[in-house]
């Protein structure tokens, strides 16, 4: 999987490393901005009220 990505990135090793880093940053951003905020309420830490009002 990661090898496949590496092979398909353009440029020499430096460019590839830079692009990989960008990809990682983008993935982390999407996770923190969209995926985790969606997943977090599914955990029990939000239940602080009585009768879920």
């Amino acid at each position, binding site marked *: *999987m*990661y*090898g496949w990505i590496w092979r398909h990135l353009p440029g020499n090793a430096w460019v590839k490393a830079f692009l990989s880093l960008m990809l990682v940053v983008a993935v*982390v951003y999407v*996770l*923190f901005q969209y995926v*985790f905020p969606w*997943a*977090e*309420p599914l*955990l*029990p*830490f*939000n*239940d*602080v*009220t*009585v*009768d*879920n*009002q």
Partner: protein
Amino acid sequence: MRVVVRTVSELCITVGALIVLFVAYVLFWTGVKADTVMDDQIDRLQSQWSKGSVQQPKVTAGATAARAELAPYRSGQPFAIMYIPRLGFTWNKPVLEDTRVSTLKKGLGHYANTAQLGQQGNFSVAGHRRTYGDPFKDFPKLRRGDAVVLTDGTTWFTYRIDKGPYKTVPTDIEVIDPVPRKSGYTRPGRYLTLTTCDPEWGHSHRLIVWAHLDSTQPVEDGKPVALRR
């Protein structure tokens, strides 16, 4: 065969990294976000108050007569700041109307169908024990006699805790009744109820404290005794 092993191990590493990131998000990042948002809410309140656009009429010290025609709190909007010296001298959180998940991310939530601040009835507030800034992390440290101070921009309200952390189940809705069951109060009065979850990281129970209104004073008179040092 090699491809299969490689793919599986890559997947395992990915899932592991994902879990670590998620834990970091829940433990750390929600706190960072909440601190910013709560500071924002407090700033909004203070600039509102400094402009003098407080909706509620002024109360004189010791006034106990029912105030006429209080404007209802607006859903999801901050309307007061809470101080609890026992939780830390610098501990202060905005109180917002309603207890939706999105509201509780921004501060403490006032149960929408309970009494307004300082009024006859039970002013009930819920807050996170953990995550989103851990506002009620030290909830079990609250003791009888501790002060819970709130201000709505015109008046300081000092409540005194009467019954320390009481553990109950999430369906026990009677704890926020005007005269809460099990609180020891027998007559109608001006009460305050705080609720949070228990155990710290779980949701099987709730912790409750009850307090009664001890004193009020206009903001012009300076901070109440409980907040002075």
